[in-house]
């Protein structure tokens, strides 16, 4: 037997086209949406999806396209991608129902796994906002008293923002929505048109799910803590403010924060398998 034969024996081809029994498994693909996206502006490419900016029905729109991953078995890939697309739009609606700002969904194409979302205009990520506030604070650190005042104002402003984040996450967890990917990049700060402050909009519910378990909520906060402290150095006190406002606004916070302490000691995975 040649080595090639051996390989063929040991590793049956995953993408054998004959294994795709047409009909129930492979839905017809419509090529129209991918073709349309070729003309759209690519905003970001992640591990799981590409995000485009475009006009849809005359409105500024963001399109999130989940692409297929060639290394996964076709059937599994289709199933996972579809489930995540569905889960994402479901969680968005659940949040909006509860009064938590999230982008409106305009259209979903389950054949090409694209979600068409309202573009949040006049917004920046919380990540950029914190970073730029911190930077402008450190620039002025050597100057005089007047600038110290400014620094104080900026610090207060960040604390207010942390409080706002804590409140909104408390509200989300009280609705049993677990975001699954809480980072400061997945929160947008939208300035209101009349400049009456700004509100927070949660985005990217691709890894979200519904659960009432304090464990899951604790892990959700743990993921945020890790992401928060690593993207924004020297913000331990700020994050404590966030947790404080979380516990003040959520009815079930004590169990969640207890779990968070547990998760900190052992890491995000409960079982050590896999």
């Amino acid at each position, binding site marked *: 037997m040649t080595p090639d034969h051996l390989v063929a024996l040991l590793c049956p081809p995953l993408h054998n086209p004959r294994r795709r029994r047409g009909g129930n498994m492979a839905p017809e693909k*419509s090529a129209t949406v991918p073709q349309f996206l070729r003309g759209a502006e690519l905003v970001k490419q992640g591990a799981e999806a590409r995000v485009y900016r475009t006009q849809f029905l005359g409105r500024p729109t963001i399109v999130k396209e989940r692409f297929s991953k060639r290394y996964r078995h076709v059937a599994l890939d289709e199933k996972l991608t579809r489930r995540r697309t569905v889960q994402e739009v479901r969680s968005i609606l659940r949040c909006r129902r509860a009064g938590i700002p999230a982008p409106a969904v305009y259209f979903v194409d389950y054949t090409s796994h694209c979600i068409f979302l309202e573009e949040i205009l006049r917004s920046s990520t919380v990540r950029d906002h914190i970073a730029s506030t911190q930077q402008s604070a450190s620039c002025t650190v050597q100057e005089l008293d007047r600038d110290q005042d400014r620094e104080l104002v900026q610090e207060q402003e960040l604390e207010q923002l942390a409080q706002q984040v804590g409140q909104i996450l408390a509200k989300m967890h009280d609705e049993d929505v677990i975001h699954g990917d809480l980072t400061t990049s997945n929160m947008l700060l939208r300035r209101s048109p009349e400049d009456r402050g700004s509100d927070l909009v949660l985005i990217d519910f691709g890894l979200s799910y519904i659960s009432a378990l304090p464990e899951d909520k604790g892990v959700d906060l743990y993921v945020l803590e890790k992401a928060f402290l690593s993207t924004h150095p020297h913000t331990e006190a700020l994050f404590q403010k966030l947790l404080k406002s979380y516990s003040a606004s959520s009815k079930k916070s004590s169990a969640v924060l207890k779990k968070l302490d547990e998760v900190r000691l052992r890491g995000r995975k409960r079982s050590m398998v896999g």
Partner: protein
Amino acid sequence: MNLTQELELFPDHTVTQMLFKEVKNAAELRQSAVDGRINGALINPTMLVNPFQVLVAANKAVHLQLIGKMKTRSLNSEIIFNLSPTNNISEAFKRFGTSDGDESVMLVVVHCKNESQLLEDIAAQVDGRQVPVEDVSWLSDLAKIRKLFKVAPQEETCGTLLDAVVCRMAIKDVM
């Protein structure tokens, strides 16, 4: 007075909306649409918040038609069905389609570009006064819409009623 929008995803499909008030032949129009003599969807404008709602429904209908997954028998009936938050076809027709005694009608036609003659012919069958499509917001029965779509006041703190309605229309098949 017509509102015309090309569907960006389907460039050879264009949607035109026309709004009529003081309509006297609603029953006759409805019958013509059922018989296929009017190639358009007749919608009850009191259930619309904004013309954008119709565009979302029409876009989805064309998409489902192209992939062969429509739930109803024609493109026009699919537009009406897509406006509804539920998956009940007859209820969708009852609430969002034109009823015999209606005095106002939103006429929606999906056509190719530059088919003004076709639009005129269809519009000519309506015995009523055409008004700008944007006026639809004066006709909307907001209380009824909020109730049917189950929109709680807290949801309107984070977005408009239109957003709430459009979200439910877009997601209804997986709820």
